[in-house]
């Protein structure tokens, strides 16, 4: 085979390994299959050794990593579990924002319902470049409408998420889609093929030429803008088809006879058939001419590598296939037997009676290359250590700073986004978007779940180890602030090229931090995905995204009636700060506002204290001691207070006395802090409660009037009408997108 053709698929070294494994040269179909299975996206060849660090077990974990989604127990009595996972769809979303994002939602939903779980919630973690760039405004709007289009139509609420805007995402936006479903423990389905002679059924949409080599594409950097334009092989989603597929699959699962089921995601028919065979320790024969196709003249190569959406592969007991296929036909879907399970662990493909590929399953999976890539400390880390924050002049007008922070797209209200998402359908959402975490009731149990997606990539950039810890801690803290016990996380690790030792260092450190945080906070990793090569070659060298290990934490509320929101409730209530102010502005939104970049050594966190704080806040909420809880994050204490004031337009008067520079105190993003409010008559009881749990708690002010007032050591620094601040906060994003005034 031509060396150029080979190197379009795998590296030359990998090709030698393939020849060695097979004892012969592969044909083109086989090479295509290897290139997909051995791609970074499918094989985790650069990340695998590091992912082993993550804790994956706990008494409440029903299914850890390795399946389509992770599963935890929510209610022992009724054996009700939730299955969830987050996955990236970054590269397609830059090339074609609407369909890229839409199919991201579709793919993650399939990962959940393929396990027998009815999807009840979606979330999206989005990262865009700065909005002065018209292309970015187009991408932002396209991604949001793609998510809205798909999620709304399939009838799964999009209940929250997060959005950051930083220049490192200018040509590499990130779209991480999360989905969660509910399943009874004894109704969980796995993707393990078994039973020699059992038929393999293809269901769902027909196979087209779209998305061929998507998994491979996701495993390369963009080499230029022009290349982005050329790679127009993004899949197109059909949420209506997906809705039919959800209903048909869940109905078919009620029947006896399904042995295994798996969606055709990245690398389509290739990965679904190989992974099912691999997990079950069996082989699979497929008759590719039986695959329903959308276009004429498709080749075996194209059929195996197409990433057409809304397709599933089902293995059922022999003799039950007609009954199973009838369910799919009832829903108007294609269902065809295209192969069978065989004993010999090989993937054998036929095309009109002729063998066109025969590959050992092990060669495609277990034998995939593993790279222990070298890593070294990046130069910027060393340079940043020299940064002295005191070189920053103190602002003269604090009101102006607060207004600017509230109108920064990263901080400003995301209402324009989430009002385009149906966040209520299925009537489970009991804390709507805009609070620290979304809360859903789990019907029939009295319990609830809280979900929060977080990752401050600025901290990860400045200090990947601490940043990795913080990503986990913040997601868990948001869940705790809504009254739920954080139980597990799923993660999506977005990085630049692992072949760059400095990027690899970021990856190693960030995952170290995450693993440590997951251990201390008792939130094992139950599922996730890795997305490398989020970088673009530019004239000045290359631009990689900040290390962005998105974490989605899921927690359980024993009693959903005791859920907590993040806004002030009543005039006269006393405001209490939990945790300590240290005045660290490194990596903060304030630093970006003042110097236009991120310098210093980032934020740090004490995980032991974080655990104590989270346990205390959950207990305080369950005991009904506090009336609101809001974690201090981007924009610091000042922004935190205003955010809590908007919902009911309640003013506040806060007086601080810390011996810290005023701007560092107001806008620093020091970790492990939560602001709560308390009825005046319960203040002593609440302070005593936290003192006993060794959580520093201090009265800092009162909910009063219609203005937000902050004083520091007697001097009034901030005084803004809440209504005015709210107007700024609520309209800023639309203005930035050029949609208003």
């Amino acid at each position, binding site marked *: 085979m031509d060396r150029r053709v080979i190197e379009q698929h795998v590296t030359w070294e990998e090709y030698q390994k393939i020849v060695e494994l097979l004892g012969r040269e592969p044909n083109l179909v086989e090479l295509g299959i290897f290139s997909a299975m051995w791609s970074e996206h499918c094989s985790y060849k650069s990340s695998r050794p590091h992912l082993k660090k993550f804790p994956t077990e706990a008494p409440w974990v029903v299914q850890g990593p390795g399946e389509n989604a992770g599963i935890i127990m929510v209610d022992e009595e009724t054996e009700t579990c939730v299955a969830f996972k987050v996955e990236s769809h970054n590269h397609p979303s830059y090339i074609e924002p609407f369909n890229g994002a839409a199919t991201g939602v579709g793919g993650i939903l399939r990962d959940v319902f393929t396990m027998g779980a009815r999807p009840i919630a979606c979330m999206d973690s989005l990262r865009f470049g700065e909005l002065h760039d018209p292309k970015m405004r187009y991408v932002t709007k396209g991604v949001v409408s793609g998510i809205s289009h798909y999620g709304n139509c399939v*009838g799964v609420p999009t209940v929250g998420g997060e959005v950051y805007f930083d220049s490192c995402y200018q040509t590499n936006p990130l779209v991480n889609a999360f989905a969660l479903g509910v399943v009874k423990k004894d109704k969980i389905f796995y993707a393990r093929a078994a039973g020699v002679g059992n038929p393999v059924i293809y269901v769902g949409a027909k196979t087209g030429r779209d998305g061929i080599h998507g998994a491979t594409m996701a495993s390369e950097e963009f080499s230029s803008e022009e290349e982005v334009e050329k790679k127009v092989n993004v899949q197109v989603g059909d949420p*209506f088809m997906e*809705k*039919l597929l959800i209903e048909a699959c869940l109905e078919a699962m009620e029947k006896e006879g399904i042995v295994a089921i798996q969606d055709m995601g990245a690398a389509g028919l290739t990965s679904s058939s190989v992974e099912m065979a691999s997990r079950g320790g069996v082989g699979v024969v497929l008759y590719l001419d039986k695959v329903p196709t959308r276009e004429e003249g498709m080749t075996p190569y194209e059929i195996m590598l197409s990433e057409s959406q809304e397709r599933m592969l089902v293995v059922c007991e022999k003799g039950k296939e007609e009954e199973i296929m009838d369910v799919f036909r009832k829903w108007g879907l294609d269902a065809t037997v295209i192969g069978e399970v065989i004993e010999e662990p090989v993937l054998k493909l036929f095309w009109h009676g002729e063998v066109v590929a025969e590959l050992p399953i092990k060669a495609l999976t277990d034998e995939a290359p593993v790279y222990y890539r070298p890593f070294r400390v990046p130069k910027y880390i060393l340079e940043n250590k020299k940064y002295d924050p005191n070189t920053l002049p103190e602002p003269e007008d604090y009101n102006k700073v607060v207004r600017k922070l509230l109108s920064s797209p990263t901080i400003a209200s995301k209402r324009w986004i989430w009002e*385009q998402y149906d966040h209520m359908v299925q009537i489970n959402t009991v804390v709507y978007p805009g609070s620290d975490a979304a809360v859903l*009731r789990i*019907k029939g149990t009295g319990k609830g779940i809280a979900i929060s997606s977080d990752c401050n990539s600025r901290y990860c950039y400045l200090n990947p180890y601490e940043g990795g810890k913080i990503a986990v801690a913040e997601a868990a803290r948001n869940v705790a602030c809504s009254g739920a016990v954080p139980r597990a996380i799923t993660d999506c690790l977005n990085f630049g090229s692992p072949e760059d030792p400095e990027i690899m260092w970021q990856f190693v450190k960030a995952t170290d931090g995450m693993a440590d945080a997951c251990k201390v906070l008792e939130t094992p990793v139950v599922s996730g995905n890795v997305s490398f090569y989020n970088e673009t070659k530019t004239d000045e060298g290359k631009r990689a995204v900040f290390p962005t290990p998105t974490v989605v934490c899921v927690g359980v509320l024993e009693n959903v009636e005791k859920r907590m929101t993040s806004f002030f409730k009543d005039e006269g209530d006393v405001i209490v700060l939990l945790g300590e102010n240290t005045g660290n502005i490194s990596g903060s939104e304030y630093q970006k506002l003042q110097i236009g970049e991120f310098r210093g050594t980032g934020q740090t966190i004490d995980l032991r204290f974080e655990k104590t704080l989270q346990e205390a806040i959950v207990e305080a909420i369950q005991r009904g001691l506090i009336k609101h809880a809001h974690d201090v994050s981007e924009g610091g204490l000042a922004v935190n207070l205003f955010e809590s004031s908007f919902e009911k337009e309640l003013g506040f008067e806060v007086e601080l006395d810390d011996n810290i520079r005023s701007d560092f105190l107001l806008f620093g993003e020091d970790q492990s802090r939560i602001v709560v409010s308390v009825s005046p008559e319960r203040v002593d009881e609440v302070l005593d409660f936290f003192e006993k749990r060794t959580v520093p708690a201090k009265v800092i002010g009162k909910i009063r009037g219609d203005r937000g007032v902050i004083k520091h050591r007697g001097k009034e620094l901030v005084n803004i009408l809440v209504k005015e601040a709210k107007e700024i906060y609520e309209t800023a994003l639309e203005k930035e997108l050029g949609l208003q005034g």
Partner: protein
Amino acid sequence: MKFGIPVYPGSNCDRDVGWVVEKVLGHEAVYLWHAEKDLKGVDCVIVPGGFSYGDYLRAGAMAKISPVTEAICEFAEKGGLVMGICNGFQILLEAGLLPGAMLPNKTLSFICKFVHLKVENDQTPFTHLYRKGEVVRIPIAHAEGNYTCPPETLKEIEENGQVVVRYSSPEGEVSEEFNPNGSLNNIAGICNKRGNVFGLMPHPERASETILGSVDGLRMFQSIVESVVRA
């Protein structure tokens, strides 16, 4: 009593309506598959929201030719109570059970949020437990809820009191400022002349339990129950 809930491919609020009927009201809910013409002896039909047939061609346009829709039209002709919510309303418009049509929202985007509605007609079987002029809080979730009709139709439905609910301020002011989608005369829901068919864009089933933040929608279902039991 027995509520019938048609299920078209793409319906996605069918279970929500079913939940309210069974768990909140304590009545029977029967799901009616789109391909069948049998209404199974139900006392009332609630056409649920969602994206029947993926909204392909036009919202509700495909559902109108489903066998179950034919049966619903016959049921309505005989005086049976039919309520359409969101996509259900769009289907009733397409099927000709209600006058007018829907345009895309003036924002050209999907909108999901709580809105205020002013009850304009409290004499229908769906709203008799409300007071005329009362303002209720119920969410909307749609991309095409911008109601339109010819001027003569508008005049007719206004004069006949067929406009049942309108988008308004929390205080009941009806103006463009409180019109989320550009709907003619702030129309959120209308009934037919006879008063037995009612369609609205807002979702009363999403505002029928305290835990969801509003119970203002529950009285629509309760009104139906009382109307049926009384009759």
